[in-house]
C-alpha cells in the first residue's frame, strides 16, 4: 500500500511540473501582453519599459522560465500586474470561496445523482424512470452559463416581480453587517442556492445515469439472486448488497468530476458574481496577468491532482485488486 501511494505521489508531482511548464509557455506565447488593455498615450515608452522590467518581463523567455521555476521552489507567487497586490493575497481571498462553492456543489451533485440513479434503477422502465432519464439527459446537455441565466430569470426576479433568491454575491451587502448569527447563516445559504444548483444539476444528471447503469448490472449478479432467494427484503437487497457494490466505480467518478466542477465554477462565478478563483482565472487570462494566471492554474491543477490521488487511494482501499497492478 505504501509503495502504491508513493508511486502515485511521484506521478502527481510530475504531472504538476508538466502543467506548470505548459501553462508558462502557453500564456507567454499568447499574443498580446499585460499592458495592452490598460495602455494609454499618457504613458511614455520609457515608463512602459520600466513596468515590464519591474516584473522581469524584459528578459528572454528561457530566463523568465528559470526564474519562475526558482520562485516556485521557494513557493513565491510574485505580484499581480493588473491587481496591484501579491498573487498570494488574491488567491487567499478567493480560493476559500471557490472551495466552498465547488465542494457544496460536488456533494449536492453526488447525493442527487446517486438518489436519482437508485430510484431510476429500482423502477426500471417505469414512467418515472423514463421521465428521470429524459430530464437528466436534457439537464446534462444544457450549458452552464445558459442554465444560470435561466435560473436568474426564473428565481431571481427576471420574470415579473418574483425575486425569491439573490441574483449575485455571497451575502446581502447592505444588511449583512447588522444581522445576527442565524440570519447571517440563512443569508449565506440563500446566496449559495442558485450557483450551487447550476453547477450541480448537470453533473448530477450524468452521475445518475452512471448509478442507474451500475446498479442494474449489479442487480443481475448471482449473489443478488441468492440474497433474494434467502428471502431478504427488497430494501436490504438493494441497499446492503446492490448499492455497496454499485458505488465502487462512482468513487472514480468523483475524481473525474473535480475538473468538471472547477471549470463549472469558472462560468458560474461570472454569471452569479461569486467572488471566487474562477473569476480571477478568467480576468488573468484576458489581461495576460502572467503571475496570477500561472498561480491560479497551478492551484486548480493541484486541486484536481489531489482529488484524483484521493480517489485512487480510496479505490485501492475498497478494492484490493487495484493495488496489484
Amino acid at each position: 500500500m505504501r509503495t502504491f501511494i508513493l508511486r502515485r505521489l511521484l506521478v502527481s508531482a510530475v504531472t504538476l511540473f508538466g502543467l506548470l511548464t505548459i501553462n508558462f509557455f502557453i500564456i507567454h506565447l499568447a499574443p498580446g501582453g499585460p499592458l495592452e488593455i490598460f495602455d494609454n498615450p499618457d504613458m511614455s515608452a520609457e515608463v512602459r519599459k520600466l513596468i515590464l522590467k519591474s516584473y522581469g518581463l524584459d528578459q528572454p523567455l528561457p530566463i523568465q522560465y528559470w526564474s519562475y521555476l526558482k520562485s516556485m521552489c521557494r513557493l513565491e507567487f510574485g505580484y499581480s500586474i493588473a491587481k496591484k497586490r501579491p498573487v498570494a493575497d488574491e488567491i487567499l481571498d478567493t480560493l476559500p470561496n471557490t472551495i466552498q462553492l465547488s465542494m457544496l456543489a460536488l456533494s449536492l451533485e453526488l447525493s442527487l445523482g446517486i438518489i436519482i440513479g437508485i430510484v431510476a434503477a429500482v423502477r426500471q422502465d417505469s414512467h418515472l424512470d423514463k421521465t428521470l432519464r429524459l430530464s437528466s439527459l436534457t439537464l446534462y446537455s444544457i450549458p452552464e452559463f445558459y442554465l444560470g441565466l435561466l435560473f436568474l430569470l426564473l428565481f431571481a426576479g427576471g420574470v415579473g416581480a418574483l425575486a425569491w433568491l439573490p441574483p449575485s454575491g455571497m451575502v446581502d451587502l447592505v444588511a449583512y453587517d447588522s444581522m445576527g448569527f442565524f440570519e447571517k447563516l440563512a443569508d449565506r445559504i440563500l446566496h449559495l442556492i442558485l450557483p450551487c444548483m447550476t453547477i450541480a444539476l448537470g453533473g448530477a444528471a450524468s452521475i445518475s445515469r452512471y448509478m442507474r447503469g451500475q446498479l442494474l448490472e449489479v442487480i443481475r449478479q448471482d449473489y443478488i439472486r441468492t440474497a433474494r432467494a434467502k428471502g431478504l427484503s427488497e430494501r436490504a437487497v438493494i441497499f446492503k448488497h446492490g448499492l455497496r457494490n454499485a458505488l465502487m466505480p462512482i468513487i472514480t467518478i468523483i475524481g473525474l468530476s473535480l475538473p468538471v466542477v472547477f471549470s463549472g465554477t469558472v462560468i458560474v462565478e461570472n454569471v452569479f458574481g461569486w467572488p471566487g478563483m474562477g473569476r480571477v482565472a478568467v480576468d488573468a487570462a484576458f489581461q495576460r496577468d502572467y503571475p496570477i494566471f500561472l498561480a491560479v492554474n497551478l492551484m486548480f491543477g493541484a486541486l484536481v491532482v489531489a482529488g484524483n490521488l484521493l480517489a485512487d487511494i480510496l479505490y485501492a482501499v475498497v478494492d484490493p485488486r487495484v493495488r496489484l497492478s
Partner: protein
Amino acid sequence: MQKSTALVLIALLAASLSCTPKQPSDQTASKPVESATPVTDRGTSEDLNPQLEEKWEAFYRSKYDTGDTLVVGTIGDAESLNDLTHVTSSAADIISLLFLQLTRTNPDFSHGPALARSWQFSPDHLELTFKLRDDVTWHDGVKTTAQDVKFTFEKQTDEVIAWSAIKWKENIKECVVVDDTTVKFIFKKVYPYQLMDAVVGVILPKHLLEKVPSAEWKSCEFNRNPIGNGPFKFKEWRAKEAIEVVASEKFYRGRPPLNRIIFKVVPDQENLVLQLKTGQIDFMEQVPPKFFEELSHNRDLVPYVFPSRTYVYIAWNLKNSLFQSKKVRQALTTAMDRQEIIDARLYKFAEICKGPISPIIWAYNPNLPDFPYDPEKARKWLAEEGWKDSDGDGILDKDGKRFEFTIQTNQGNKIREDITVIVQNQLKKVGISAKPLILEANTFFSNLNKKEFESAVAGWFVGLKMEMTTIWHSRSLNDKFNHVYYSNPEFDAVNDQACDEMDREKARKLWWRAQEIIVEDQPYTFLYVPKQINFLHRRFKNVQMETIGWSYNIEQWWAPKDQQKYR
C-alpha cells in the same frame, strides 16, 4: 477623477446575449434627463465660473436629509484605490470619493476650489501658486498640508512608480512648499494647459506613504486600504464582491448626506440589468441601448442620457496599398451608411461622428465637411482611382489586385462585432470585399498597437485636454498610438502652432483647421459618438450627471427621509 483626463483605447465589454426591447407604446415611460452643461471656454482659465460655483454653494444653504445607502452596480472590481497605481475607471470612480484634488473640475471644464482655496499665476506665467485650506484632515486625523502636495508631485513624476498619467506633469519643473498652506508649481514653459496639468491627480498622504519605497508601490498595503481626505471614507473591500465607503464626519464641508455608498461587483451584464430592475442596485452606468426601452418603463428608475466621451471609428492602415489614396478612403466613408448602424445597433443613442475631436471639447469644429452616404458617388470615386470590376466577379480590381481586406475588432463588444458585418454588407454594394475578423480583446489591441491590421473598428475615450499629437502627428509615426501611420506635414505645422497658442480665439481657429485637414484625409472613417445611458433610483435628489463624470456632485446627492430605503 483622474481617468477623466486620459485618452484611452476602449474595449467596452458589452453583453453577448441579445434581447429585443418592447415596442415604444407606453405613454408612462420616463423621459430621459439630459443634464450636460454646455461647454464654455473656461477649460484653461484660472477664473472661476460664478454660476457653477454659486450652484455648488447653494446646496449647502439648502435643506436636505441625511441617511440612506446608494448601491452602485459595476461590471468590474477595482484593482487599487491608490491614484498612482490604479488603471481602471471602476477604481477612478471610487478614488474620486475618497481623495481631494487641488481643484474640482466642473462640467464646463472650469475649476472650482477644493483642497485649494484660490490660485494665482506669477506675472511671467511660469509660476502657479495655490493657497490651501487649513481645515482639511486625513481620515486618520492628521492635517493635509502643502507637504502632501509636494510629496504627491514627486511620486507622480517618479518613473519607478510609473503613474499612468505621468506625461501630464512633464512640463512642471518643480513643486515648492512656501508654507504649510501655500504651494507653488514652477513650469518649464508657458502653455495653455498649465492649470490643468498642475491639478491633475488627487493629493496623497505623505505621512502614510513616505516610507514605502517606490518599487513597492505596485503592491503596497495602501492600494487596498486607502486613507483619504475626501467626502467619503474607505470602509471595506470584499475582493471581487464589493467596496464600501461611508460618509466622513470630518469632511471640511460637513458630512455628505448619504450614509454609505456600496460598489457592488456583478461581472455579468444581464445580471446587472436584472438587479437594476428588481431594485437590488440603485445605479448603473453605461446601460446598453437595447435595455433602454424596457428600463424606462420602470417607475423607480430615472434615465440620464448625455453624450459620452468616446467615439468609434474604422482605422485604415495607410501602409496598406489599398488605403493609400485619399480619394479611396473618402469613397469608403461615402459608401457607408452610418445612420443605419446607429439606428439598428444603437437604437438611435448616438450621433454621427465627423472628426477626431469630441463635441464636448472647446476646440471642436462644428462645421467639418462630411461624407454623407452615397454609394453612387463612392463607386464613381473608386472608378476614378482605377478600381473597376474587370473580371465581372462583383469585386473591384486594379492591376490584377482585388479590393479585398479584413476588418478586425475585439470580441466581447457585440456592437462592434455587428458593425463589421454591417460594413461588410454596405461595402459589398460598391464592389468591395471586407471580411470581419473578431479577435480576443488582448490580441486585438496588441495588433492595433503593433499596427498589424488592414482595417479595424475601435474606439477612443477622449481626454479633457485638446491634444492631437499622440495620434496624428508625424512625430508619433513610430509610436503605437498613431495606429494608421498618419503623416501630413501641413497638419504637423498647424498642430504645433495651436499647441503653444495662448490666445484662445487664435488657438481655436488653428484647431479647427487641424481637424479639417484630418477629415479631408479620412485616415479613419469616423463612425459615431455614442450617448451614455445611466439609470438611477428615483429617490436620490440634487443629482447632476454630466459628460465629465456621473459622480461629479455625488457628495451632494440626498434622499428624503420618507423615501429612504436603507439605513
